């Protein structure tokens, strides 16, 4: 366990040592939030949209996105450690391999609190509503932190598969796709064609619903709005965790 904590500290040290390391993961979701709101803000005028504030609809999406990018960065950092030989040295240490990535995942979850909070603060400052109160906020933070861990597992899986930093865009864009093949822009009733089916099957739709309890008037904090998201998070973590650990165990053998 102390190995995981040490590596957790190492990954946080990186944030302190590398100037501006947190900036992209923090600024990007804010940019997306403002950009998407600017592009599609008029969609709330359509019948079936649960809120008249598109910003409130998008804030949870941007929180998840920021957390997801922070998580995916774990994969880029691991790929760098693999390329530069540092990870080879860790692999010969007499510790279970999952512990070698548990620290960086914890580090990512800790870091992800920054973009999620900045997005929320910017969102509230420019007019998003906190309709779900404290319970909604807790749901939003739980969804963000857990989604960050899942994105980190995805990034680790990519890193141990390709073992090159050039796989970085693949890690980030995997998160990007998972988030956008959901009810990212509009609620399910306004989706058309294949996306309606995919969003219905995509577990991230439920995670978004969990997060939207904080800011969307039509999605109040309740058990019915919470448990599908929690189940989705557990399922994703299990599947990607297995893939990441299998890849890790194959390294150097």
């Amino acid at each position, binding site marked *: 366990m102390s190995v995981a904590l040490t590596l957790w500290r190492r990954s946080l040290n990186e944030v302190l040592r590398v100037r501006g390391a947190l900036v*992209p*993961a923090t*600024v*990007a*979701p804010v*940019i*997306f939030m*403002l*950009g*998407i*709101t*600017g*592009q*599609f*803000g*008029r*969609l709330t*005028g*359509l019948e079936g949209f649960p809120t008249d504030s598109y910003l409130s609809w998008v804030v949870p999406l941007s929180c998840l996105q920021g957390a997801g*990018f922070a998580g995916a*960065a774990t994969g*880029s*950092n691991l790929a*760098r450690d693999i390329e530069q030989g540092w990870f080879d040295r860790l692999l010969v240490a007499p510790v279970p391999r999952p512990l070698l990535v548990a620290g960086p995942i914890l580090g990512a979850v800790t870091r992800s609190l920054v973009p999620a909070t900045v997005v929320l603060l910017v969102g509230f400052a420019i007019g998003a509503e906190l309709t779900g109160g404290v319970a909604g906020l807790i749901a939003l933070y739980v969804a963000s932190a857990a989604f960050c861990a899942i994105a980190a597992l995805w990034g680790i899986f990519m890193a141990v598969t*390709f073992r090159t*930093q*050039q*796989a*970085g*865009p*693949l890690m*980030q*864009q995997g998160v*990007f*796709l998972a988030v*956008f*093949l959901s009810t*990212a*822009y*509009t609620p399910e009733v*306004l*989706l*058309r*064609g*294949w*996306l*309606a089916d995919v969003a219905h099957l995509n577990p991230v739709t439920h995670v978004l619903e969990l997060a939207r309890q904080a800011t969307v008037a039509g999605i109040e904090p309740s058990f019915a709005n919470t448990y599908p998201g929690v189940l989705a998070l557990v399922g994703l973590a299990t599947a990607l965790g297995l893939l990441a650990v299998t890849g890790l165990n194959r390294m150097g053998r």
Partner: protein
Amino acid sequence: MREGRVVVALGRRALSVQFRRAQLLMPTFVLPLVLLAVIASGTSAGQGLRGFPDVESFLAFVVPGTIVQGTLLAGLTAGIAMASDIEFGFFDRLLAAPVQRTSLVLGRLAGTLSLSVLQTAFFIVVAALFGARFPGGVAGVLGTIALATVNAVAMGGVSTAMAIRTGSLSLLQSVFPFMFVFLFTAPAFFPQELLTPVLQDVSVFNPLTYVVEGVRGMLGGDSSLGSPLAGFAAAFGMAAASVALSTFALSRRLRRL
């Protein structure tokens, strides 16, 4: 003449390096298409909003946004590859060669240009297969490919300048989301009149606005959707500026050596 051969050789190398690890090209080719599909399905209800132009297909209306997004990613790929060459020492070997420094930058951008031609043609074909109709015809498609490649070179120039300036692969990889600022502050997926008022004001100053609308005008065969001339002017302006920026970054890097 000899410099031309250097540019072609480096361009060919840039392209072959990209395609050797084709799985890493997936995001460049597939992500914009997925986003196109998501936006076309997810926001097509917006076509019913008052003020939306009278277009035959919503899919064809948002394709220009996808094409421009592709040019952003193709440009970013150039920067990532350049940073990789710098970090792993290949670029130092190039610097020792008796060739003009500008050719090293232009060679990398020649690869971006070729990638963008393939990418834009691919997006248009896939969109057509899924039902998008382009009244601009063959001339509109060819004009679009030309405009997209100039824009990709412009974006490649920006990211190459960053790569040369910083030499950091991880920094270039984190630039990906920032490229979207340009996309989202242009009427990439929705008409300019239906953007929020603040974004409408900002979009006027974003050169990509004119590129997106130029593509829309050419594919739609309707100059009321956008002026191709303004699009080409914006793209050429950005390309000239960004190539100059890259060359300047290179000469500064050489002074530091």
